[in-house]
C-alpha cells in the first residue's frame, strides 16, 4: 500500500514531539530552568503540523468523496484518537504555561503535582501511541 509522505512525516515527528514534551517536564521535575523556547516550538509544531494533519485526515475521511472505505472499528479508533489528541494538546499547553509562570515565582509546577503530571503523561502516551497504532494498522498490516 502507498503511504503518503505526510503521513510518514507526521508519524515520525510525533515521536520527536513526545521527546520534547518529556524533556520539558523532566527539566521542571529536576528543578532546572524552564525551556520556554523548546516549549513554544513543540506547541506550535504540534498545532500547525500534527494536529492539523489529524484534523485534515479526519475531515477527508468523512468527506462524501472519500476514496477509502474504513471499517466501523477503524472509524471509532480515528474518532477516539482525534478527540484524545485535541485534549492532550490543550492540557500540555495549559500546564506548560502554568509551569512557566510558577517557575518565575520559584516553584516547580510538575514536581509539586506528581499525580497531575503522571496523569498527563499517561494521557499523552496513549494519545501518541494510539496514533502510531492506527498508522501501523492502516498502512503496514
Amino acid at each position, binding site marked *: 500500500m502507498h503511504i503518503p509522505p505526510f503521513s510518514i512525516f507526521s508519524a515520525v515527528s510525533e515521536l520527536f514531539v513526545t521527546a520534547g514534551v518529556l524533556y520539558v517536564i523532566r527539566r521542571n521535575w529536576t528543578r532546572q530552568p524552564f525551556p520556554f523556547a523548546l516549549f513554544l516550538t513543540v506547541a506550535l509544531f504540534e*498545532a500547525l503540523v500534527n*494536529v*492539523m494533519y489529524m*484534523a*485534515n485526515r*479526519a*475531515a*477527508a*475521511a*468523512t*468527506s*462524501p468523496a472519500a476514496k477509502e472505505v474504513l471499517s*466501523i472499528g477503524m*472509524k*471509532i479508533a*480515528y*474518532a*477516539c484518537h*482525534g*478527540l484524545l489528541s*485535541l485534549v492532550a*494538546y*490543550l492540557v500540555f*499547553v*495549559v500546564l506548560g*504555561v*502554568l509551569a*512557566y*509562570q*510558577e517557575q*518565575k*515565582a520559584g516553584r516547580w509546577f510538575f514536581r509539586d503535582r506528581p499525580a497531575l503530571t503522571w496523569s498527563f503523561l499517561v494521557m499523552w502516551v496513549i494519545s501518541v501511541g494510539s496514533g502510531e497504532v492506527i498508522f501501523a494498522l492502516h498502512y503496514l498490516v
Partner: protein
Amino acid sequence: MSGGEPARSGNILPLVAPRSRRLRAPLLVLLWWLLGFEAAGGLVIFFMRLAAGTTPGVTAHVVAGAGLTLVYAVYQWQHWTRVAPWRSRLDYALGLIAAISMALALASGYVLAWPWFTRAFARGHDAVAYSTLASAAHNIMSMLVLTFVLSHLAAVLLRDRGGKR
C-alpha cells in the same frame, strides 16, 4: 482610629477585587456558557461524524455560534479598550493568539454553515458536502481557541496571585 486601625467610615464600601467582579460580569458569564456549549457540541459533532457519519445537534451549534459571534465581538471590544495598549507579556501574547484563533474559528464556522444553510433553506434532505479544508481549519482553530483562552486565563490569574505574595 480604634485599636491602632483606622475606623471605617459608614459610606465606604468593602473593597472587592476588580478581577473577581469582572469574572462574574453577565457578559463574560454568557460568553463562557456559549463557548462551553459550542465546545461540547463541536466535540460531539467531530466524534459522531467520524464514528457514525452523522452530525447531531448541528442546528443548535450553528445558531449558538451566531450568538457567540455577537457576544464575543462586544466582549473583545470592551476587553481591549480596558487592557490596551499592547504589552510584551506572556498573558498578552496568549490572549492575542486566542483572539486570532477565535476569529478564524468563527470565520471557518461560517464557511461550513453556508452549505448547511442553503440546504436547510431549500428544504433538501441530501447530506451536506462540507469542505475538507474548512472542516479541518474549523476543528483545529476551535481547539486552539480553547487552549489559548484557558492558557491566557491561567497566566493572568497566576500573575495576580504572584503579585499578592
